[in-house]
């Protein structure tokens, strides 16, 4: 039941937090924190499992036997890392909202925990029906978070978000049923089990359409150009906690889906579309950076900057080499932490200036709030890929790994390393350097904020300077995705052959 508990704990925790809010707001907050700490402990337990590339832990409970759907969960290195970052960033989301969210506190924390539960369901489900169920479910509490606790324009942004994701989700549902039917017809075994479907190869004329269905849903969620229409509005108008959740880990379900489903199952079909998608990835990279440069709203700038990074993620996934996939893993983590920290700081600034996000109305803030400005500068630099920060390791791995299969696009992406510097330094100039354009009475970071942002910076430097732990956790599973499209075999099956030559040193060299 270990894995099922990972999903049940936040569900029950959410209810408990809501109930606790009747007693006092702080009890509700502490209940949420307690839930997340419990969850982290549960998750760290999994790290001790043997990590060979096969599932580190798996379990299955009957659900709808008539159609072959089960409540089956499993975890390997890839999902474990994403589960961990989701829990940690939920904690960050709760901590930044400690003093700023004061309406409907019970519902707020309930929604955070239920989003998390849905996201963990997505990362852990090994039944496609269950996967779809969780994929759709996480969107609804997210909708409420944006709509009820966001700014004045949040209603429209939330609607846009739910329309985009529901529409693309329906396309994926069709693709899941298509795959289910093809597999059932071919083998006589009608099942939604991931292991069975992932081992299934078909050249049925419908296969490219099925691939497109999956791809579309994940490309919207990631997002990449031109499927990103919901993203800037949702990131900008959501409350700080909402932006952190969206950019930090909810969007990562798109990347996860591509690595977990599209890469192994539809390798052949993906190959025919590679030039098109690689071009979209490169456009995303430049488009995000250019749009970020053009923004005046600091949150919108961060949103577009985040979009640009997804271009790298897409390129790395598409290249599908061991190095590029490792780069993608590091990017997902590093980008999650850095974007969460940037949104947290933008939120702190917004609170201090009583709702100002327009950088044209800032300027010269360094003198007033030096600690805040310094940390912002550090985060911006890590985000633009200064070595020492996590994004640099991710980018260099993706670029080195992608050059072999996708040389032309990698060269374009290399040129794309220049543009983030432009908007990043322009942000610093407009908000923190120069002379103040308006007078605001600002206070620098307090101890709680300093600790929170400081901890995130330390994590990012740790990823940038000592990424081995992360790389080794993801390596066995990624090596299987890369070396052979056959997915990690189930625990019950014979352990799959490990390609020793392609593997880095194991955890115990």
């Amino acid at each position: 039941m270990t894995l099922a508990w990972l999903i049940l704990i936040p569900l029950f925790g959410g209810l408990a937090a809501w109930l606790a809010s009747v007693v006092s707001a702080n009890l509700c907050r502490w209940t949420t924190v307690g839930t997340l700490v419990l969850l982290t402990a549960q998750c760290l337990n999994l790290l001790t499992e043997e990590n060979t590339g096969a599932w580190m832990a798996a379990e299955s409970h009957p659900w709808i036997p008539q159609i072959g759907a089960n409540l089956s969960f499993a975890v390997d290195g890839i999902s474990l890392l994403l589960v961990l970052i989701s829990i940690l960033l939920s904690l960050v989301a709760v901590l930044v909202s400690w003093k700023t969210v004061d309406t409907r506190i019970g519902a707020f924390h309930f929604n955070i925990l239920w989003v998390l539960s849905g996201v963990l369901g997505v990362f852990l489900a090994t039944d496609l029906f269950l996967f779809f169920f969780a994929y759709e479910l996480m969107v609804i509490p997210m909708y409420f978070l944006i709509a009820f606790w966001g700014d004045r324009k949040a209603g429209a942004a939330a609607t846009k978000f739910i329309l985009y994701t529901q529409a693309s989700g329906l396309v994926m549902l069709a693709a899941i049923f298509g795959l289910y039917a093809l597999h059932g017809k071919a083998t006589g075994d009608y099942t939604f089990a991931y292991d069975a479907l992932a081992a299934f190869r078909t050249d049925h004329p419908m296969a490219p359409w099925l691939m497109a269905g999956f791809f579309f849903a994940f490309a919207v969620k990631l997002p990449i150009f031109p499927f990103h229409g919901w993203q800037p509005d949702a990131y900008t108008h959501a409350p700080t906690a909402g932006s952190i959740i969206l950019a930090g880990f909810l969007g990562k379900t798109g990347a996860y889906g591509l690595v977990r489903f599209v890469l192994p199952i539809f390798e052949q079909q993906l190959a025919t579309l590679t030039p098109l998608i690689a071009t979209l990835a490169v456009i995303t990279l430049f488009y995000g950076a250019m749009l970020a440069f053009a923004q005046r709203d600091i949150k919108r700038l961060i949103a577009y900057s985040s979009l640009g990074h997804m271009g790298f993620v897409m390129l790395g996934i598409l290249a599908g080499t061991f190095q590029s996939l490792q780069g993608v893993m590091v990017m997902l983590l590093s980008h999650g932490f850095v974007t969460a920290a940037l949104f947290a700081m933008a939120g702190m600034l917004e609170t201090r200036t009583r709702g100002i996000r327009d950088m044209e109305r800032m300027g010269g803030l360094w003198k007033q709030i030096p600690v805040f400005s310094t940390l912002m500068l550090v985060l911006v630099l890590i985000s633009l890929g200064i070595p020492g920060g996590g994004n640099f390791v991710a980018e260099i791995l993706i670029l080195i790994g992608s050059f072999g299969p996708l040389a032309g696009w990698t060269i374009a992406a290399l040129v794309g390393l220049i543009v983030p510097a432009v908007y990043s330094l322009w942000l610093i100039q407009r908000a923190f350097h120069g002379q103040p354009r308006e007078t605001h009475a600002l206070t620098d970071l307090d101890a709680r904020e300093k600790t929170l942002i400081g901890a995130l910076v330390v994590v990012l430097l740790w990823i940038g300077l000592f990424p081995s732990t992360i790389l080794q956790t993801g390596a066995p599973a990624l090596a299987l995705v890369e070396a052979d499209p056959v997915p990690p075999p189930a625990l019950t099956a014979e352990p799959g052959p490990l390609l020793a030559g392609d593997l880095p040193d194991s955890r115990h060299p």
Partner: protein
Amino acid sequence: MIDFLWLIPFLPLTGFLILALFGHEFPERGAGVVGCATIALSALVTLGVTIQFAGLGVPGLTVHYGEWFRVGGLSPDFAFHLDGLSLLMMLVVTWVGLFIHLFSAGYMHGDPSFARFFAYMNLFVASMLTLVMADNLVLLILGWEGVGLCSYLLIGFWYEKPENGYAARKAFITTRIGAVGLIAATVVIFNSLGTTQISAVLDAAQSSWLSGEAVAVWVALLLLIAALGKSAQLPLQVWLPDAMAGPTPTSALIHAATMVTAGVYLIARHAVLFELAPGILWMVGALGAATLLIAGVTACFQRDIKRVLAFSTISQIGYMFLALGVGAWTAAMFHFFTHALFKALLFLGAGAIIHAVHNEQDMFRMGGLRKQLPGVFWTFVIGCASLAALPLVTSGFYSKDYILVKTLTSEAGSVWFAAAGILGAALTAFYTARMVGLTFFGEAKTEVGHKPGAAMMLPLVVLAVASTFGGFLETPQTLGHITFFQDVLKGALADIPGPYLSIAAEAGLQAGVTGLVIAAIALAWKRYGRGPAGVPAPDQAGFFARGWGFDDAYETVLLRPYTQLCRWLRNDIIDGFGNLIAGFVQFFHHVLSLTQSGMLRKYAFGLAGGGLVVLFLVLYL
């Protein structure tokens, strides 16, 4: 001492961390002590390491400290490589850095951000040491980007002024273009040779790449782009003159002695790869020659003393590139060495002058400072003599002569390269003499405020002595034939060979160049020897003074189109498309809701009309 090698970059890093985290609680003196002491210790360790390394008698050695990351075959380590080349760079960075730090303690006295300044400077030294000690390309990129970052931070140090911020961003983004070249080179090298460890790369390239093969040419070209950006060579030189917005000690350390020569180091370090791409090697020399002439001419038209020195730096690095282009790696490094000494001296001297005349930088508003600042005057003149390459007693003479001889004798050399070098020597002498005349002679135009104290004078004197005697480490056959410098670098660098020029020819070249230099000085002295004749109007900067229109060209071709394009895209075309659908739906919502008027008459009319249409369709189609 080699056991303590890690301390060399680690000490300045510690200084940075202390000052960055707790600097605001330090009194000025405390921050200064932390800033200088870490560099001093690092310099001493470097000296100890050098002595021990010299005793070992090996060409090079590598010290591993741990793994950075390991993915497939890609495994950059935290590892440092020691050989003559890296030790030379380390000695210059730590020792010149130390004296510049000492000078800064006096120069920055009273600045409210004193601790922040030393934090940045310490981080710079740590990054620069990482750059030159790195044993693999990924770690080298860490140092490379680190020094670029510190350069950005220090140029924009006085951030209240928007123009300083502009100069800082310009420097960072221009050198970022170069950094991308370096990252791209790393990507190509790893995909071709399967390693990023520099000595392994050089060996593998020699054994598996043919001379002139596409991959060799591409890698050399990408490395060249990296070097052009960092070392401010044509066509990426535009950022360096603006970088003078930073505090003057910064200009001395980063924009004269060390960081801007990182490109020279990069090419020398990868000399083998450039030998495999002769076309690109020729480009190195040609760009160097063009840069040294263009920047030399521009320097003759400047009024701001720091901008003269900035263009002079670009021009002198042009000499180093010229030497690299003919495969005279040792000569390039020798000129790097002497230039670091005398240009640091000149920048610090300029700093002392600017400090004394209330932050005035326009030479036409100075004049007559010889009597009021005698110490600064004499040390500055010694530096200028080296820059102008006055014969026999200046280090600049020996290094420049070395380069000129090599352009003629090397197999990769040519008469045109030599001609550019000789013409450049005359230009250098001209703008140097002009600078001395305008600043120190004639009538005083500005009152002298605070005179430099001991903290500022000591570094000037030390550097003046060093830039006089530094040249004797390597002298031509006509003048004693000392080959100490060559011998030190022999283990790391192998020059492209060439026949020896005869003693007579060499002496003739030296005499000819010296004659030309003296003529140029005389010409400049005739016009500027009596100080500034009057203050010209400020806005008469012509084509040459503005750096030959490069800035304007980039403005028109790159900056404006980019900002304009971004402005057009601002509202996100894709979002517009999504909103179009929403608008479409909304439109029909309004139109159709009009039909729900609640009036029975209209409903009946609609029903009848619809019925008629259906009837028509059924009957006739």
